[in-house]
């Protein structure tokens, strides 16, 4: 780690890992957890869509896309805070 002190490097990696686990949580929630309840959700209807079907066909996908853009900006903010972002 070029110009990071060992303590700062440790703190940087702790923050990065924390964000990683948050993202894995989002991934698990929208990839799996929501769909465990698909039979129950299907009793709710929104503009014709049974909600359980909607979540697997669209809802989770939208969450995936949004969370990836959020992750990119969040990790970038961490990089800048620790001064390890690439200069361009």
């Amino acid at each position, binding site marked *: 780690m070029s110009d990071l002190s060992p303590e700062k490097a440790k703190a940087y990696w702790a923050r990065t890992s924390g964000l990683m686990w948050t993202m894995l949580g989002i991934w698990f929630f929208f*990839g799996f957890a929501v769909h465990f309840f698909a039979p129950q959700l299907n009793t709710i209807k929104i503009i014709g869509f049974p909600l359980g079907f909607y979540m697997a066909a669209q809802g989770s996908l939208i969450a995936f896309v949004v969370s990836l853009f959020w992750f990119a900006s969040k990790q970038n903010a961490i990089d800048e805070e620790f001064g390890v972002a690439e200069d361009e």
Partner: protein
Amino acid sequence: MANNAKGGDGGFIANLGKIYGIYTGGFAGFVIVLAILEQMGVSNQVIGYLFVFLTIGVYALIGYLSRTAEMGEYYVAGRKVPAFYNGMATGSDWMSAASFIGMAGTLYLLGYDGLAFVLGWTGGYLLVSILLAPYLRKFGQYTVPDFLGARYGGNLARFCGVIVLISASFTYVTSQIFGVGIIASRFLGISFEIAVFVGLAGILVCSMLGGMRAVTWTQVAQYIILIIAYLIPVVIMSAKVTGVPIPQLMYGQALEKIAVLEQSMGVVKGHTAVFSNAKGEINLLDAVNFFALILCLMVGTAALPHILMRYFTTPSVREARQSVAWSLFFIFLLYFTAPAYAAFGKLEVYQNVIGTPIANLPAWVQSWGEIGLVGTCDAADAATRYVMCKGVVGNGDGILQLNEFRIASDAIVLATPEIAGLPYVVAGLVAAGGLAAALSTADGLLLAIANALSHDVYYRMIDPHAPTKRRLIISRALLIVVAIAAAWVASTKPSTILAMVAWAFSIAASGLFPALVMGIWWKRTSNTGAIAGMVAGYGVCVYYLVMTQFYGMPLWFGIKNISCGLFGIPAAFIVTYVVSLMTTAPTKEMQDFIDSIRVPKGGVKLASADDAISH
């Protein structure tokens, strides 16, 4: 590094928006011209030819203009592909003939259960972005096996990586070339075997002269065509059926009508019913298989080398992360539309096909029946006239009942223009889109295989002192050899190979994912541990696949063999973990190397000078 841009290149990157804007406009103009020609009476065959040859011609032109003799350009497109465009290129790299043509039909046939593919083929990008892509980009060499070699002490780990890569990619590329052959033969009216080699030529002109650089810029062009071609028919269909041209929102109405019709026809397993068996009850084993498949497809996505290598091409680590987000956005556009195709197709069938006297069936049923993608099996001799009717016994009352109707999954997307009553030019557009999807995926896969052979096996393992010129010649020669081999296999129409395509995800997930992730996230992972883990994961997965598929071994816990990663992934993680703890910890130099790739800024401290890249 390869960043010493050549003269006109900076201008090209700066003007990408303009160039692809003009290209998109030009393509729209071309479609309009063809539409006018059709109205003037030009035959369908000619329109099909114009679509196929003009689009392939444009890809070939881009491939030719992108020719290069520099290693950095050939292997990683000079690392200057902006996040947005790399996202588009990854989108078409990712979406294959199966996604474009087959997915909507799978959803039509399977209903809710088919959504495992939609979820599995999108959610994996979260794993790519948070666990792998930024770190592999920082590592900054040419191939995925490069990383395994540098992290796990050399050629044995590299070689294991190459084996997994080729196992996962070769069957996959064969099926893409098969897809190209099907589309080209249908729209050009030539034999399948010849069409395969026409497709092969189309693939090679894109990749041979310019490697990754050429493939990148043709993939962007192919993405634009495939997404336009995918959206137009279903948008018009939605406008026709519901009055609003936003199919993704409006197919809820179609689902409601389908549910009503299902009830009146006595369908037990409804389109939106979750994990239900033939009796309409919730079935636990179906649920387990649904989630197992999602997991394997997601983890497999994050381990397929032809996808990971696309993130080697961005200018920075930051852009690699943004680029994954853009990739998923562009993929999402197609995947959240596919269920709409399925719903509108099903509504049409339930409303206008089922319960209709055979003599009054819509014209599209007849025309797709003739080429064997639809079967109306009412008459006693139907099986002799329709391939699809094999094994179906109709009641011969002159009316088509639900159980007398068969449709192949490929027919949904291909027939939608006709169902919506659109001119033939739209059908040609869909064919061009399917062709773009198959060609772009084939390009990426071929390059991944050929690069693994030329860079990892030849240069790294056989002749590390080979001069640049010879390496490039070898790369291109191998590309041709692999392409011809894949085309030859495809031309024999191997049904087993095609059934094996979906295996690629579980194989990559079991063989590569644990070694890649643990190499970055767990410093204690030792060389022996990682190699043992790769062998174990790959071994378990392939053993389960082969034994259940060909030797009649009973399924473990009822898990379908497409999801063999459910056993292979944990096996690889556990073996890697246990063996790592039993063997000596990585050296201080290796730990410094890991630290250096975890941080975007600064140089990469390779543990062994032999791993340094040379140009």
